[in-house]
């Protein structure tokens, strides 16, 4: 008889067990224990590849399903954005699927808006009501009076619905309240935006400079993977941040800059680089215009001048400028992600773009890469029958000609009658909790009260749902199929989101909801497919990709194209001059500084701190803070206060305090984190906590919401971004 290992262990185990009576000693021998580690039984009897929706990076996920229940989610090794790994949020997706607080049935409002008193109704009643309201607005004001706010991949069906209906008023807070300025700053300089995923070859950088960008806490999976890989290969970080961020903890240089003075530092760095001839002259000669004008502009932006503004010693500015230039062209200055800070954000990100140009890092390995994209023919829809009016997303007396997306904040304000070119009368809100995502939530409420109609399509009863006339409960990403994902990236790829389990409760996928509305308002022709999987597979098939492979792998990766000059790419620039524009005639013509200038920030009033906020790796804004699984490791935020400043304020770590801003707006109680990790002139908190929606039974009253302290904004005159780091708070004991 062959003695297998398993059998041997069993025999051995029995013998050891007998000998162990009384002493327990024999079982300590290696390999002699009969009790193998119990299999926890979380491997799926089915494994379904799909992609994540816990944030907007859209990593490939393998969903394990056992007896009809999702047991765990792991990274899809074939997917270029996950490479087999996931961030904590993606790992916790089942916490959303099984959230007991989910919206379960359609509801129609029965009391005043905002009181969150609803009656559960059937789908037919909810959809009939929505259709009737949409038709009324169209009749009375025209279709452009309906706006769609959409954040999330299922929003594509509603965008299509709204365009077919006749409106282009489609926006997400992810633009004017987040990454908008950097897109414009980049376009003005390089003729292309930064994109998402950011087109940054962090993995191959030798020097990575972060301006307030907190990679690692801002947990976009592949980007953090690349950061770690770069560090492993010896890359060095320069981190500019008033707070000792996670990234700062790994940096060669941490520059604890005075908040709001980044442009001064950037200009001084460029001053040193140009003065000392450290820039990539051959690259600039070939690809850029305006170097002479820039050099002249920089003459008085000396390190000594910047020292007094930024608090960073002149010697350190010179040293870091040389260090950054020393890594070129694989020296990358990150454009950041949420960059709406001080209202001059397009100019700041343009300064970052120009600095990258001086380093010759655009279209270079270890710098900014030029992406490629899997080509997927669009679905052969009928043409939209109506040429809509331009969305009224700026005030009557203002325009933001360089904005390249519609402003969510602008559409919101246009809902307050008489303020914009025409009034917005109806809102469809898909997957975005505008009361926490937008600054000045009191104004958002005022806008909502002025509406004829507001419908919310969402998974959870966030604050915004409480203000809806009708609430349409959507299935989570694990229960539905959405549009195919084929973003511009390092390698071209296409990925599919597939239903992992049947929709729970009486929820419906977004495609179904949009199609049912379309059928009721005479737009059935625009939704000719049976379901979204048929739609997705039509696109996949017409691209010549095997639908079977797509379904079994969840992703198909195309052939890598050259993305940098080192790969053989010859870069082109879609700017007016066809070159990198260090000097921007477009900006000059629009009445703005053609090269970034510096304006000193306002000082905090006595006894006040500048309020800064950012992200936790475990959460995506407020949309994940009710996830009990994620809550196991991050269930409430803290306010970071410099240890000495806390002492001066008479508060200690763990104390509960209330933050009161310059306009008297008060936060919910929040615990103090007294720490050496932040300057004494500012405080910091993670965004997304402090829900007050009754339906969010886990997240409610945990931590504080920063949005209600953002009563003041500074609007970026170039593209309409709402600068939000312009509020000051004092600390009161709770």
């Amino acid at each position, binding site marked *: 008889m062959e003695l297998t*290992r398993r059998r*041997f262990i069993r025999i051995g185990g029995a013998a050891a067990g007998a000998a*162990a009576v009384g002493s*327990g*000693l024999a*079982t*300590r*021998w*290696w*390999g002699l*224990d009969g*009790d*193998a*580690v*119990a*299999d*926890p039984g*979380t491997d799926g009897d089915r494994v379904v590849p799909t992609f994540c929706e816990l944030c907007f990076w859209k990593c490939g996920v393998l969903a394990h399903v056992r007896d009809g229940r999702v*047991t*765990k989610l*792991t*990274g899809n090794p074939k997917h270029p954005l996950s490479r*087999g*790994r*996931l*961030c*904590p949020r993606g*790992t*916790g997706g*089942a916490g959303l699927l099984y959230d007991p607080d989910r919206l379960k049935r359609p509801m129609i409002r029965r009391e005043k808006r905002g009181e969150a008193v609803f009656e559960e109704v059937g789908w037919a009643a909810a959809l009939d009501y929505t259709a009737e309201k949409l038709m009324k607005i169209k009749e009375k004001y025209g279709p452009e009076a309906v706006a769609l706010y959409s954040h999330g991949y299922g929003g594509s069906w509603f965008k299509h619905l709204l365009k077919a209906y006749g409106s282009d008023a489609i926006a997400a807070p992810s633009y004017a309240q987040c990454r908008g300025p950097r897109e414009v700053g980049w376009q003005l300089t390089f003729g292309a935006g930064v994109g998402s995923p950011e087109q940054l070859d962090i993995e191959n950088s030798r020097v990575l400079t972060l301006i307030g960008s907190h990679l*690692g806490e801002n*947990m976009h999976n592949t980007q*953090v*993977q690349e*950061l*770690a*890989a770069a*560090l*492993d290969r010896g890359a060095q970080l320069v981190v500019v941040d008033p707070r*000792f961020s*996670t*990234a*700062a*903890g*790994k940096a060669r240089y*941490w520059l*604890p800059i005075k908040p709001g003075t980044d442009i001064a530092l950037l200009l001084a760095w460029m001053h040193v680089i140009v003065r000392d001839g450290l820039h990539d002259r051959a690259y600039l000669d070939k690809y850029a215009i305006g170097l002479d004008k820039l050099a002249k502009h920089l003459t008085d932006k000396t390190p000594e001048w910047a020292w007094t503004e930024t608090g960073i010693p002149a010697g350190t500015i010179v040293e870091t400028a040389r260090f950054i230039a020393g890594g070129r062209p694989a020296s990358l200055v990150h454009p950041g992600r949420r960059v709406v800070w001080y209202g001059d954000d397009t100019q700041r990100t343009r300064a970052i773009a120009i600095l990258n140009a001086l380093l010759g890092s655009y279209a270079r390995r270890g710098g900014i890469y030029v992406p490629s994209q899997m080509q997927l023919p669009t679905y052969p829809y009928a043409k939209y029958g109506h040429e809509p009016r331009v969305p009224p997303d700026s005030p009557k007396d203002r325009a933001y000609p360089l904005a390249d997306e519609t402003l969510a904040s602008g559409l919101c304000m246009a809902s307050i009658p008489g303020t914009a070119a025409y009034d917005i009368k109806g809102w469809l809100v898909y997957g975005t909790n505008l009361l926490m995502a937008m600054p000045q939530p009191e104004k958002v409420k005022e806008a909502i009260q002025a509406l004829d109609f507001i419908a919310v399509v969402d998974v959870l009863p966030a604050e915004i749902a409480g203000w809806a006339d009708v609430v349409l409960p959507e299935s989570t990403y694990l229960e539905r199929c959405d549009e195919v994902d084929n973003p511009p990236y390092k390698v071209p790829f296409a990925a599919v989101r597939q239903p992992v389990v049947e929709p729970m409760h009486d929820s419906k996928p977004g495609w179904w909801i949009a199609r049912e509305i379309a059928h009721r308002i005479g737009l059935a022709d625009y939704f000719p497919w049976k379901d979204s999987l048929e739609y997705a597979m039509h696109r996949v098939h017409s691209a010549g990709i095997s639908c079977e492979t797509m379904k079994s792998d969840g992703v198909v990766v195309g052939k890598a194209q050259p993305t940098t000059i080192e790969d053989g790419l010859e870069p082109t620039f879609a700017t007016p001059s066809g070159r990198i524009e260090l000097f921007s005639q477009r900006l000059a013509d629009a009445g703005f500084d053609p090269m970034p200038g510096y304006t000193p920030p306002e000082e905090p009033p006595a006894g006040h701190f500048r309020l800064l906020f950012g992200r936790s*790796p*475990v959460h995506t804004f407020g949309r994940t803070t009710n996830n*009990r*699984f994620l809550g*196991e*490791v*991050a269930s409430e935020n803290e306010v970071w206060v*410099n*240890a*000495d400043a806390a002492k001066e304020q008479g508060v200690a770590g763990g104390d509960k305090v209330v933050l009161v801003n310059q306009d008297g707006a008060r936060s919910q109680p929040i615990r103090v984190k007294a720490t*050496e*990790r*932040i300057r004494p002139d500012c405080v910091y908190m993670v965004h997304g906590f402090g829900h007050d929606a009754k339906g969010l039974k886990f997240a409610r009253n945990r931590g504080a919401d920063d949005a209600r302290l953002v009563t003041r904004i500074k609007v970026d005159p170039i593209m309409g971004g709402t600068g939000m780091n312009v509020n000051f708070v004092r600390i009161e004991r709770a």
Partner: protein
Amino acid sequence: MPDAKKRYAMVVDTRGCVACKACVLACKAENAVPDGRTRDWLVEEVRGRFPRLAAENRSERCNHCAGAPCVDACPTGASHVAEGGTVQVTRHKCTGCKACMAACPYDARYVHPDGFVDKCTFCLHRAQYGKLPACVEVCPTACLHFGDLSDPGAEVSRLLRERKWKVNHPETGARPNVYFLV
């Protein structure tokens, strides 16, 4: 009996770790760890005074010590040395007396609601299929490494040869098998 020679170890690269806690959550999902408990955890250590600061992030768990105090302390033999030198708990032999918890220098154990003491297993149920522990597999920074230190060609062996490392609480003499690259 080749398995008896194995010496499983984990090597944690503190330089890459961003303390995101994906390891904690992946472990919880993989091992169906009960609510309110975790088998691994993050330590974010910051030293110094503003603005001269240094930070270290460590993903920590049971050290599967070669001279495990928990095994010595266990009166029933539930805590024992198993394959690859790992320390495991036989659930049906555990009476929940917590002697092991008192003995553990790392506070790595908790009482499972079902009455036994539980902790990190190095995902031995996965190792038998050649799969890495769940925390190692998920880690977005790839800062966790798992393998057999008795194999000089293993990645963990190479890392300990080539990089500077330390262990937690070496003074206890427990000879831990979780190593931190610094």
